């Protein structure tokens, strides 16, 4: 899916100017790379529709989804994005399976559970289905969060430093998983050069407060 952002976003004192456009050929995984606090995560929230631009526009798949000039704002629910955050943000009162089933958009409850089981299996977490998030390790939670994000058949996957809170061995295992599992167009926020090298096909470079441009990762 093509992604085109040309927008300014203010969050308190902080201002980020994001200006880049990406086509499917530059993926599937495009890293948003730069130092902490350069506005990468805000850009992702803007694309997800969790924040509105203060000026400018966002296009997803050729469709205008946000336009500050007219106030147009397509709701997050209608953007068909899947998102994984630095913390898994699973619903603590639901099992891993229920968390994933919640994201399945069609079918009866039984079909949703069946699909959720498949998604869990694809991330190597089928044995965690009946567990509650608090009993899972950080890496297990992120596996479930990835399964949940993919269960909604997103057209665009948004990964906001999903591996940065994990220890090194877990991080490497999940990198392998992401490389194998991710086929949908994906934006990955990271400040880790190893992660860029291991996962990304293209890179959107950031310096504090703005994007510099897009380059091939390899």
């Amino acid at each position, binding site marked *: 899916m093509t992604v085109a952002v040309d927008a300014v976003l203010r969050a308190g004192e902080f201002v980020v100017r994001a200006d880049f456009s990406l086509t499917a050929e530059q993926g599937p995984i495009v890293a948003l790379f730069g130092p902490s606090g350069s506005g990468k995560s805000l850009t992702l929230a803007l694309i*997800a529709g*969790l924040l509105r631009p203060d000026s400018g526009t966002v296009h997803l798949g050729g469709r205008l989804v946000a336009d500050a000039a007219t106030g147009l704002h397509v709701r997050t629910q209608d953007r*068909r994005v899947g*998102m994984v*955050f630095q913390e898994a*943000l699973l*619903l603590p*009162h639901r099992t891993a399976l229920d968390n994933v089933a*919640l994201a399945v958009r069609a079918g009866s409850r039984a079909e949703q559970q069946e699909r959720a089981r498949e998604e869990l299996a694809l991330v190597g977490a089928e044995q965690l289905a009946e567990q509650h998030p608090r009993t899972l390790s950080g890496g297990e939670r992120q596996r479930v969060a990835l399964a949940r*994000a993919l269960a909604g058949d997103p057209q665009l996957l948004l990964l906001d430093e999903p591996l940065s809170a994990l220890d090194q061995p877990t991080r490497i295992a999940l990198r392998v998983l992401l490389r194998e599992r991710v086929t949908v167009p994906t934006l990955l926020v990271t400040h880790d050069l190893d992660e860029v090298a291991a996962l990304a096909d293209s890179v959107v470079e950031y310096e504090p407060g703005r994007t510099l441009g897009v380059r091939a990762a390899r």
Partner: protein
Amino acid sequence: MDWFPLLLSLRVASLATLMAAVLGIGGAYLLAKGRFPGRGLLEAVASLPIVLPPTVLGYYLLVVLGARSPVGRAWESVFGGPLVFSVTGAVVAATVSALPFCLRTARAAIEQVDPRVEAAARTLGLPEWRVALQVTLPLARRGVIAGVALGFARALGDFGATVMVAGNIPGRTQTMPIAVYDAVQAGDDARAGTLALILAVVAVAVLLLVNRFSRAGV
């Protein structure tokens, strides 16, 4: 021993708590999440029963619901009897008294819910009403339950507003707190003591329940 006041009080307090819970939780959600003009005023009005003397609250209810008021006349033409000096009047008085306890406690709990978990739910495609019912309220449930329990205690214990609106008609609208007053006036110490003890036990039970649910953790 005449158990009528106890049974009436339980009936009135249960109905009032149910209504106060629906209005209070809905209102709490609107106040916590909504941004609309008059929000501050709405909250202040809903909280008035906490600070107004109950008799003053009852007086205003009497003005609004009385036989000569538009509401009172409309009620009488539909139901064939006055709203005031009836059990329904007692339920309304207890509902209004209980409402701010349900609302304020639920609102505080709703505002404590991690907005990132709600954002994550939106990226899964859940419509707002499902975010509210399946994410926000379950995560706020301890505070919501505590508020409803406090509301029940308040509804059960109301004297001033109830006696103004529903009167003190033995065998018809005489609830427990009013019966205690009546018994003391009549010099029936045994009856006053028994009724007072029952109310005190219920109050302690509610506080224990509230403390249990107010403790941290989900």
